[in-house]
């Protein structure tokens, strides 16, 4: 099962490597990992997407909680939540393909954010599955580069992850 774990941690230089090191040392999967500062300068927020059986996810959350730099964490995929990922795709765009790409981008509510006579950069946001689907619709050979941010997420409703 896929889980999205949101972590508040001390904004210390070693904190990220403690989390990454834990995953590699214990052989846990990481699908994606994002980290950035929060409105509180002393904290950063990490979103970690992982897969594993219930037992493994239980161990992952316990082991993360044991890290001294981890202040709080929540498995947001266990509640109603919103997840988003940002993707930028650079595609070769010439002749009739230019129109077709614009059409597809509209359908996926994406934006074209860079244009040259032979290429576009398209920005799309959404759940991972939507981004995967968008890539599927593009002509594989036209894709020059794909850059994805990794998933971030937030709980629905008025509940938040605070210290």
């Amino acid at each position, binding site marked *: 099962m896929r889980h999205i774990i949101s972590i508040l*941690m*001390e904004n210390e*230089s*070693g904190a990220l*490597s*403690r989390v990454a*090191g834990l995953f590699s*040392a214990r052989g846990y999967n990481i699908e994606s990992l994002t980290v950035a500062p929060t409105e509180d300068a002393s904290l950063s927020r990490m979103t970690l997407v992982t897969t594993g059986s219930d*037992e493994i996810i*239980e*161990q992952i959350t*316990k*082991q993360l*909680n*044991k890290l*001294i*730099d*981890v*202040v*709080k964490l929540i498995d947001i995929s266990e509640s109603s939540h919103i997840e988003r990922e940002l993707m930028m795709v650079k595609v070769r765009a010439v002749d009739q393909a230019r129109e077709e790409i614009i059409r597809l981008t509209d359908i996926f509510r994406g934006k074209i954010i860079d244009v040259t006579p032979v290429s576009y950069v398209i920005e799309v946001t959404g759940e991972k599955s939507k981004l995967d689907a968008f890539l599927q619709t593009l002509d594989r050979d036209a894709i020059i580069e794909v850059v994805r941010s990794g998933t971030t997420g937030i709980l629905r409703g008025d509940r938040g992850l605070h*210290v």
Partner: protein
Amino acid sequence: MELSGAEILVQSLKDEGVEYIFGYPGGAVLHIYDALFKQEDVKHILVRHEQGATHAADGYARSTGKPGVVLVTSGPGATNAVTGIATAYMDSIPMVVITGQVPLPVIGSDAFQECDTIGITRPCVKHNFLVKDVHKLAETIKKAFYIATTGRPGPVVVDVPKDVTDPNIKIPYEYPSSVSIRSYNPNVKGHRWQIKKAVDLLLSAKRPMIYSGGGVILGNASEQLREITRMLGFPITNTLMGLGAYPATDRQFLGMLGMHGTYEANMAMHECDVLFAVGARFDDRVTGRLAQFCPHAKIVHIDIDPASISKTVRVDIPIVGEVAQVLDDMIEMLRNSDKRPDEAALSAWWERIARWQSLDCLRYDRSSPLIKPQYVIEQLYEVTKGDAFVTSDVGQHQMWTAQFYKFDKPRRWINSGGLGTMGFGLPAAIGVKLAHPDADVACVTGEASIQMCIQELATALQYRTPIKIVNLNNGYMGMVRQWQEFTYESRYSHSYLETIPDFVKLAEAYGHIGMRIENPADVRPALEEAFRLKDRTVFLNFMTDPTENVYPMIEAGKAHHEMRLAPGMTVERELA
């Protein structure tokens, strides 16, 4: 008070009540060594290898319950300490290790004796700190001790760049009286409702078993364990790390469990209907084949670390909490309960256990003309009246000590269980002896293990820490040889040491007394003489039967009820 970083470090240790610091100097810690020179409260013990410093501090910690403290230089000093840090980490031993680091401005430039100590130690510490500002030094030391000694204990590394200890930069000093870390709240009080459920389950048991571990020793809960075991009348077993937490000479004690545990302890595990796990972590040496672990049992587990619970074996009633407190609560509930354990069921259960015990699974050949290693440990037990502190190295000798020295008190049995570090025994014994100068301290070792930290014989002389080294010299890496005999058709690939030194001369060269013992009849007199020499370190080189194996044994992939017994020993049908 205005102090330099180096002085702050030393003063912080004083304010923390540190008696001994085990260390080895080098460039990055010279300012600190200069500050140490100018005071007498914190006594520095100069080892001969940084691994020795960590094991000595570890022995000090295990035998006292107080944190061990280590000081080493950057680069090779820190990397040499890693084995000892990992050893302490695996057995949850409180330790604070101060490592020197190159000055802040050159960190990352491959400076002389630079290594990424924080990165290298990260996977084997409870936490580590790089001190980047002298103003944070005292507070960081305070945090390090706090983290190392609370919750599930463990080693903490504090990496201190040389410029942070600059003797010319003085700042006001005040040692914090307390710290709080918002992201670290060691959970102490067990959940009352869970405890209640556990008590009910225990009282309903027909074939109960108590399985207790190192957590009882770490949490100073031996008294409570004894009390509750007596109240319940249940059989009890200890892990290798738990030995001494429950008196081995008590009739409810079934001996150690696991790979080299007793037949009765392992059979009782297999057949029990309620398992009460107390401060133990279901290690693979203990569980055997997981799919067949305690197949009939409902399991209660007390542990301070939620990650130890349901890690390898799912438990029915988890209780996260400090073991002493949880047991106190349970004892109180038992006192106030009108229910009592099922006496009829218990006495039937004890009868079955008595049949398993009648096998006498640790029996060995007492008529051999060769010295049997088991006999040496039995005699060690008698000569020291069961009251010595005994450290060990890793191998067969370690298992025989666990089986044959009947520890009645906690913190007397000092060995590396989780990492299984050869070389641990001698330096650990030095740390123990410093902490308990009037007690008998023995180090049981093997001719292979002892050579891994043999240089600490010099430390033992310098600080007058008279210990008795009981070397069970079988001429082999016995534990390795045993596995090769059982699973590799006796192909003894590199498990034989062809050039074993003359340990008597070696001991003498280091200024100690050496004895070589070849006949069973000389075992006891030699031990008696050695322990009479109160103020001397004695190296007893016992030439033991090179072919002896440790029995019984749960071989790889086998379950508790499938133990391999000593040759010639069979289980009659009615036993099983």
